[in-house]
């Protein structure tokens, strides 16, 4: 059994029930919260369809990005054995050692993403090169024996898949009886390829068009780093002895750097390989593409709030580099949003949303009225309108339709202007607003970007751009606006084009200006009189100080101001928009709780403040004092926090019994019983051993009757 967990530990595997009606069940969960009155089923359906759309989109993106890599690999595999097939008779082919063709595939440290890459790789290979593919993982192959077993199992099974279960009797050789050695593998390969030749001609054509005459056997080592040296060495040595009979190709999946090959294999073994390097796309670029195609479009009605996006990006950059985890986080956002927000039923394409508004129930209308952004909107209206909005559902629905449309238009405009602003900021020195568009996006979502210092400094820098840069940027902006779906940009495009023509005319004028300045210089040279000279120099100096800006500078200012005005108009943060709660998911705390688990902190909270999890009113404490109604382990934990590195068990027991006794007999006279009650003693021992199990203390040999604390830091 396998898990996708990276850590060691015990995992529970539940037997998978034959057929679970997942969809129905989950749909019920959606309704659970509020008696099913909030269109739970519709919300669930919307959520499902949205997620399916996202999923297919991301898969498509991944496929496109991997295309180059896969194409290279396919052509490598095509060539790998062809040389020997064609010219075995030639001298240099006869004399050369036959090396095993090997592709070193560098995939980056985001191991969780590799599975998808390998899956698409084996799919492509199966379609183009060979049906004989074996995927090996280090944890299945602790020894060469296990490796051979796994390899043969996979190869001989794959035969069944390809031949569409036609001749099962041949393949049904029970695997335990097959001798797992290279010879039986070779025999199998010979029989399989021979069989193909003797097949009916029509069938032969179809297979040979896809596969080569004698298709290579591809063995993929998914995680090269984790294989032991001995297993790899033995496998390479064995297969190199049979390379003439069995056209083997190895693919090493490498997460770190190709140097690992040399550190795992000695020269005598690596000299048996013919290694070529293939590099996959960096995961950062992959993420940028995903964000670009998924978040910065108007295709998806669902949006991420600033804090949520920040959490997802931080997990990616700080912890795992895994695009799959990012997408999973995104999925969690989608589910959480549709689950927790009853109005998310309107989070769909604009046309659908308008229809759904009409059929909203009264409760849902009340939900809308309760939205903070909507309340702000109402307060801005005149008083009669306020009343109708709050009392008449139909009028409310009309307004909501209009507002939704506004929101949609806002998104369309937002994306284009954001890209346009990114064109400017991404070429400034030191990138005050960030190099990537995602940073700019976060900054714009957070608050009014034009009020930030970074924006101010980037405008300053933009005012110093040279002409050629400025012109190319303007051209890029024009392209963005022309291709955008927003309808308001006709004027903007015109304006930008006007700027461009102005720059061109400037160029022509520049020549004339140059002439003028030259003539004034000449005039200066004519003055030979000292007094006059001084006077003109003074005049020149004066004019320079209050120098009027050149035309170019004026124009540059105008351009920057215009961009600024666009930003102020269109890049308003989303939470200033009415009804933004419907499409934006903004509860970052939920996400953080789920994705960035902090076991130590959770444990501490549970023991320190049991009310947090038990929700028992009696436990509600108001500060640092130890509640005596808490579970024993909590009392023991709190007491141990007050101790140093070594804890005296007798003192601890005494303190424990004091706390517990004061709970049971608040007014009884404590000093009477010098001996601790047996039951309390037992409870204490249990609490201490539970703490030991949790790893807070351990027995110590330094002092008798003491235990050592394993954590540091007090209350």
């Amino acid at each position, binding site marked *: 059994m396998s898990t996708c*967990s*990276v*850590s*060691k530990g015990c995992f529970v595997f539940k037997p998978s029930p034959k057929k679970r009606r997942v969809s129905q069940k989950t749909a019920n969960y959606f309704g659970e919260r509020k008696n099913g009155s909030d269109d739970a089923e519709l919300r669930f359906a919307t959520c499902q369809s949205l997620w399916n759309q996202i999923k297919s989109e991301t898969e498509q993106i991944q496929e496109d990005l991997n295309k180059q890599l896969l194409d290279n690999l396919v052509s490598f595999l095509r060539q790998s054995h062809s*040389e020997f097939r064609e010219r075995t008779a030639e*001298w*240099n082919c006869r*004399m*050369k*050692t036959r*090396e095993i*063709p090997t592709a*070193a595939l560098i995939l*980056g*440290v985001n191991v969780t993403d590799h599975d998808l890459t390998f899956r698409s790789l084996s799919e492509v290979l199966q379609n183009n090169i060979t049906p004989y593919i074996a995927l090996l993982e280090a944890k299945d192959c602790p020894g*060469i*024996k296990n490796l051979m077993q796994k390899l043969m199992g996979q190869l001989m099974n794959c035969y069944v898949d390809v031949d569409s279960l036609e001749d099962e009797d041949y393949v049904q050789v029970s695997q335990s009886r097959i*001798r797992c*050695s*290279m*010879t039986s593998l070779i025999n199998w390969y010979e029989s399989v390829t021979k069989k193909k030749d003797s097949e009916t001609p029509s069938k032969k054509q179809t297979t040979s068009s896809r596969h080569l005459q004698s298709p290579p056997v591809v063995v993929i080592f998914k*995680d090269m*780093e*984790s294989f032991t040296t001995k297993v790899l060495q*033995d496998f390479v040595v*064995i297969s190199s*002895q049979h390379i003439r009979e069995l056209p083997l190709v190895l693919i090493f999946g490498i*997460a*770190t*750097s*190709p*140097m*690992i*090959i*040399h550190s795992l294999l000695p*020269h*005598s073994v*690596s*000299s048996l*390989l*013919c*290694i*070529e*390097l293939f*590099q996959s796309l*960096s*995961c*950062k670029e992959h993420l940028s593409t995903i964000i670009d195609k998924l978040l910065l479009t108007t295709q998806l009605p669902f949006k991420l709030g600033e804090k949520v996006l920040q959490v997802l990006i931080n*997990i*990616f*950059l*700080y*912890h*795992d*580099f895994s695009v799959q985890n990012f997408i999973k986080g995104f999925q969690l956002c989608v589910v959480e949003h549709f689950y927790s927000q009853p109005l998310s039923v309107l989070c769909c394409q604009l046309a659908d949303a308008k229809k759904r508004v009409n059929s909203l129930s009264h409760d849902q209308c009340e939900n809308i009225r309760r939205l903070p952004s909507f309340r702000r909107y109402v307060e801005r209206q005149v008083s009669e309108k306020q009343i109708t909005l709050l009392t008449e559902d139909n009028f409310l629905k009309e307004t909501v339709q209009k507002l939704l449309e506004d929101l949609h238009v806002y998104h369309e405009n937002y994306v284009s202007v954001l890209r346009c602003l990114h064109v400017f900021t991404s070429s400034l020195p030191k990138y005050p607003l960030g190099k990537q568009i995602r940073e700019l996006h976060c900054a714009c979502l957070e608050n009014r970007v034009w009020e930030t210092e970074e924006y101010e400094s980037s405008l300053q820098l933009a005012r110093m751009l040279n002409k050629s840069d400025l012109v190319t940027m303007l051209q890029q902006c024009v392209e963005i606006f022309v291709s955008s779906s927003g309808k308001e940009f006709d004027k903007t495009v015109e304006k930008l084009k006007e700027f461009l023509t102005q720059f061109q005319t400037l160029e022509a004028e520049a020549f004339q200006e140059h002439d003028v300045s030259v003539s004034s210089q000449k005039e200066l040279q004519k003055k030979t009189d000292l007094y006059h000279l001084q006077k003109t120099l003074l005049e020149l100096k004066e004019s320079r100080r209050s120098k009027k800006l050149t035309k170019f500078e004026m124009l540059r200012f105008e351009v920057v101001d215009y961009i600024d005005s666009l930003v102020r108009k269109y890049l308003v943060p989303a939470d200033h928009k009415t009804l933004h709660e419907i499409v934006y998911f903004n509860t970052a705390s939920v996400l953080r709780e789920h994705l*960035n*688990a*902090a*076991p*130590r902190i959770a444990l501490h909270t549970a023991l320190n403040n049991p009310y947090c999890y038990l929700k028992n009113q009696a436990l509600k404490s108001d500060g640092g004092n130890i509640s005596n109604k808490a579970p024993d382990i909590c009392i023991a934990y709190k007491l141990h926090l007050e101790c140093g590195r070594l804890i005296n068990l007798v003192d601890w027991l005494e303190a424990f019994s004091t706390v517990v006794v004061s709970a049971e007999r608040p007014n009884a006279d404590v000093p009477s019983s010098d001996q601790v009650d047996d039951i309390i003693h037992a409870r204490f021992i249990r609490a201490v051993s539970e703490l030991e199990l949790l790893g807070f203390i351990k027995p110590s040999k330094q002092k008798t009757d003491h235990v050592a604390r394993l954590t540091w830091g007090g209350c």
Partner: protein
Amino acid sequence: MKMPNLEHPAYPAATLLHLESLVPCRESQVSMLLSIFGERQQFSFPSIFIYGHTSSGKTYVMQTLLNTLKLPHVFVNCVEYFTSRLLLEEILIQLQSCCSEAEQTSHVPCDSFNDFVRLFKQAVGSQELQDQTLYIVLDRAEQLREMEANILPAFLRLQELTDRNVTVVLLSEIVWELFRPNTGCFEPFTLYFPDYSIGHLQKILSQSHPPEYSADFYAAYINILLGVFYMVCRDLKELQHLAVLNFSKYCEPVVNGEANERDTRKLWKNIEPHLKKAMQTVYLREISSSQWERLQRDDGEPGQLKGLSAHTHVELPYYSKFLLIAAYLASYNPVRTDKRFFLKHHGKIRKTNFMKKHEKTSNHLLGPKPFPLDRLLAILYSIVDNRVAPTANIFSQITSLVTLQLLSVVGHNDQLDGPRYKCTVSLDFIRAIARYEHGSASVKTERAQTANEYR
């Protein structure tokens, strides 16, 4: 007709002459073997142990000898048949097929050496082999030591155990002393194959010249090749491979008509720098031989193609970088210095007594030392500027680094409390990582590292 160096009454002179031409520079060993083997029907020494360095012709000589003289034999590679069961079954299968080609009996399971002896007797008894010595050659015999303890001694005494005319030949790269089990065993006859000298290599390599060119021309080429490569590589197979790879470049001036076959100096000038480049790239498997051939064909510079070791940079997530740096510091700095490097108010430490004598030698020469998890985390919290929450993600990154072999776990794998680690990356690697994180890497890291370097 030339008199053969090898003489043996049992075999015709022509066969021996042919055999001699096939095993150049190994005549003395072959004649020694022949005299041990004796005539076909004579019992020979029960077990022979042949050892010698890599590619000193052990396997090749044995194979050619047995094949040319048509002696009944079984040839098994012990690496390939990695368990005793596989090995014994393979011997039986080969025995069946070598004696009677006709019938392929279904394979018989053979679980122990006892079974093997029984089945072996049956197999030999049914064939017409009784009057001939059967040879069982076990290549890469060092693997036998890793199988059950009885396998090696039993093979050495196979003749006695089966009471049949059989000789076991063990081929290995290591000396017999490393095989001898401490319970004692039958001592085999040992035979050493010495390394080929440069003259031998020249002779053997020149033998297989391409048909289009004369033997002298090829011999001159081999001479140049050995001049470059003999210092680093004496492996015959590898040299052969390199010779073939680069021969087309050597012929280039001749093909283009710029020089004739006798123009040795010109040819040398053409090929020498090329071979030196090959030594740095192809020989080290930095680039593959097919890539090298492609380069030769297109006349490109090998500089365009980056070798494997050019791709050393590994992109890591932010905290993984710091974890790795912290691990490196923990591995190479003594524990006592932690307080000084990573605490703000560490107080004065007297310079004179600070370093103990044995610590003055560079820690890099001593290699990484293991450290507990707590120390790693303490250093991590100290070198990262902002607060690090001890989330599950941080801990899982440590495990990820272990699977990527950048860290390694010391001690047993399933010791869950207080695991200890070692940092396995080099200083250069850490430097490269630290450089990328320079903006945020605190001065502390730098200081601790430099202190480390100049010690």
